[in-house]
């Protein structure tokens, strides 16, 4: 009863109808469970840290924050409130949003290029975006420190421009010759080097104060998370993700081959263009606020595919949730594992991501393609 009502089917007796209902209800259930897991991980991320806030204090702060009563100022100790509301919460939310965006961008790139190795980091899109942001900093277009909202958007726009440029170069290479997935990865790595060289050049050319900002920014990290950057990032990422999610059926059709997709009435040119814009925007906006974080965009969609299959209607939300969970866990580890010293979060994601990438490259080659 539950099952059929979940999937919206109510004609009994047909085994096949039950089959599809089972198929979708399983996926929906998985996504619900992932959402709950994300909430749980958020709770853990807010509860753990060097300051050793007791769970009792944590609960007080939580109640205070949730209840609309103005008396909330009095709940919990002052230390607990400062640490949880000002430090852990914005950081955890930034990790969630960044993980979500990177995973969404990864799922999109994998779908569009039909390449299981695609990821904004591996294809050099993050490096392109980082060059764009660095350029904005050096040209003084926007101060990364002391953001105003408008300046923030300027940096995002510059990052986006170069992220998009990287994406279109990758596209061009992918379509110029029917490149093998591995070859495209090589091209992406080369592109990444090119943009890194550009950043190094900027470092050489910039003045003292710019250099300081640039250096600090390039070192990345989630520690500086501010509400303001969240307010800036949230609408951009939400819009881009919704935009990508809408093209789920087109991506599904493309999964069966370009000719099939064309026959099914998919406008391939438009799908590619929109996908490039959406994925580049997600990756670039994230890079602007967190620096380059690798492999989340690779790992999350594959885990998502393992859990809910290749239907992008379910795959995109599942990947986003998994990306958020992954990055949140990685950042919590980065904060706590060597406390009081913090490890850069990119170290943790690479420690997870690189073995995963290598196993994709060698062991599972057959399984994923053909």
């Amino acid at each position, binding site marked *: 009863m539950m099952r059929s009502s979940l999937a919206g089917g109510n004609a009994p007796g047909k085994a096949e109808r039950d089959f599809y209902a089972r198929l979708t209800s399983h996926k929906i259930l998985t996504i619900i469970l992932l959402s709950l897991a994300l909430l749980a991980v958020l709770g853990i991320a807010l509860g753990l*840290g*060097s*300051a*050793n806030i007791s769970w009792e204090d944590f609960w007080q702060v939580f109640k205070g924050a949730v209840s609309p009563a103005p008396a909330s100022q009095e709940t919990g100790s002052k*230390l607990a409130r*400062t*640490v949880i509301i*000002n*430090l*852990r919460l914005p950081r955890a939310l930034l990790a969630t949003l960044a993980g979500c965006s990177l995973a969404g961008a990864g799922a999109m790139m994998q779908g569009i290029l039909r390449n299981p190795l695609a990821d904004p980091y591996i294809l050099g899109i993050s490096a392109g975006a980082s060059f764009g942001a660095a350029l904005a900093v050096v040209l003084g277009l926007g101060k990364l*420190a*002391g953001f105003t909202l408008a300046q923030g958007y300027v940096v995002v726009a510059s990052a986006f421009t170069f992220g998009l440029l990287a994406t279109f170069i990758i596209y061009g290479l992918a379509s110029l010759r029917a490149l093998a997935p591995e070859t495209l990865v090589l091209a992406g790595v080369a592109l990444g080097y090119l943009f890194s060289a550009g950043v190094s050049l900027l470092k*050489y*050319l910039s003045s*003292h104060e710019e*250099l*300081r900002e640039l250096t*600090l920014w390039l*070192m990345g*990290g989630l*520690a*500086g*998370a*501010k509400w303001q950057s969240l307010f800036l990032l949230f609408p951009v990422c939400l819009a881009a993700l919704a935009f990508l999610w809408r093209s789920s059926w087109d991506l599904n059709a493309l999964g069966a081959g370009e000719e099939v997709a064309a026959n099914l009435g998919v406008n391939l040119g438009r799908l590619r263009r929109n996908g490039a814009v959406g994925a580049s925007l997600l990756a670039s906006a994230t890079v602007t606020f967190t620096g380059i974080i690798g492999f989340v965009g690779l790992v999350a969609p594959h885990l998502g595919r393992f859990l809910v299959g290749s239907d992008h209607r379910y795959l995109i939300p599942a990947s986003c949730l998994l990306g958020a969970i992954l990055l949140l866990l990685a950042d919590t580890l980065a904060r706590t594992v060597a*406390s*009081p*010293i*913090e490890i*850069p979060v990119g170290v943790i994601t690479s420690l997870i991501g690189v073995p995963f990438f290598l196993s994709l490259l060698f062991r599972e080659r057959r399984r994923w393609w053909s």
Partner: protein
Amino acid sequence: MGSKKNRFVARVLPLLMLLIIFLTGCSSPKNAAQNGLTGKTVKTFVDGTGKEVKISCPVDKIVCLTSGVSEILYALDSADKMIGRDSYSIFPADLEKIPVMAKSSFSPNLEAIIKSAPDVVIADTMLKDDLRAKLEEAGLPVLVYTTSYPHETALVVKQMGELTGKEERAAKLIAFSDKYYQLIKDRVARLPEDKKPRIYYEWNKPYYSAGDKTPANDRIALSGGKNLAAGQKVKYPELTPEWLAGQNPQIIIRMSSREEGADKMKALYDEILSRPALQQTTAVSQKKVSIMSWGLGTGIRSVIGSLHWAKWFHPDTFSDIDPEAAHRQLLKDFYHMELKGTWVYPPAK
């Protein structure tokens, strides 16, 4: 008319002078307000970034996330007030007992710092503005400094003295440095330009030098040398060996990191002497190559480094000066320790 004008000038001038004193004295505390109960005074500090910060002094608990200031606090007998440090604050070794709250100013553990509730947090410019803002939001005053230039170091010593109520000792420490800096300046000023040797300064990697507007460039000039890389647009350029050989440096200075001992310094020395590209240069053929520990390159002890440099550049002019004795005295007077280890190679004769 004339007398009116004079009166005006007579009135305005003192006012102007007051204003100038007020402005130039911005590093000294203002708005002092005595608090009768605790014996504390709220003072306003203008830190290395030009930011005004009000702090109730003397402070009892300090988190210091930059080694340059940690060693100053130690010299002012205030290390006991440090309740947190960065992982690089390890000179003097006593500091290692203090809990680490950051790898460096770039990655402070905000939670640990806020929980320890210090009266002030001190960092260097690697502290991101966002993170500084977070600490300030939590009600912690933050002071940010660099100690690359002598005048910066002097400012920090002065302000640390005020912060911890050790003004007298701070004045002594500043006087110690000033005495030697003044001596170097006076003697170098009397030297003709053509007597100043051409210096190739190498920091952490082969052929990496320091160009215009760097502390090293200023320090070379201070000790009476001509920095070959001074004209470079890039701050820390990588020079081509050919170009360098063509410039024919008369003296080569190479910095080694703080942790590296005599063996490593000797290895660096031998390596530079054996570089094929530099064989024809005056510096290599006359073996005028010196290695100096970075411990004498920045902060309080950079005055010792400058003394060494001055003596290397102009042995006759500074024949009566013994940098090692000055170093020994500095350590004895302010750090209560003996001079140990190797700081320059080859050792002074």
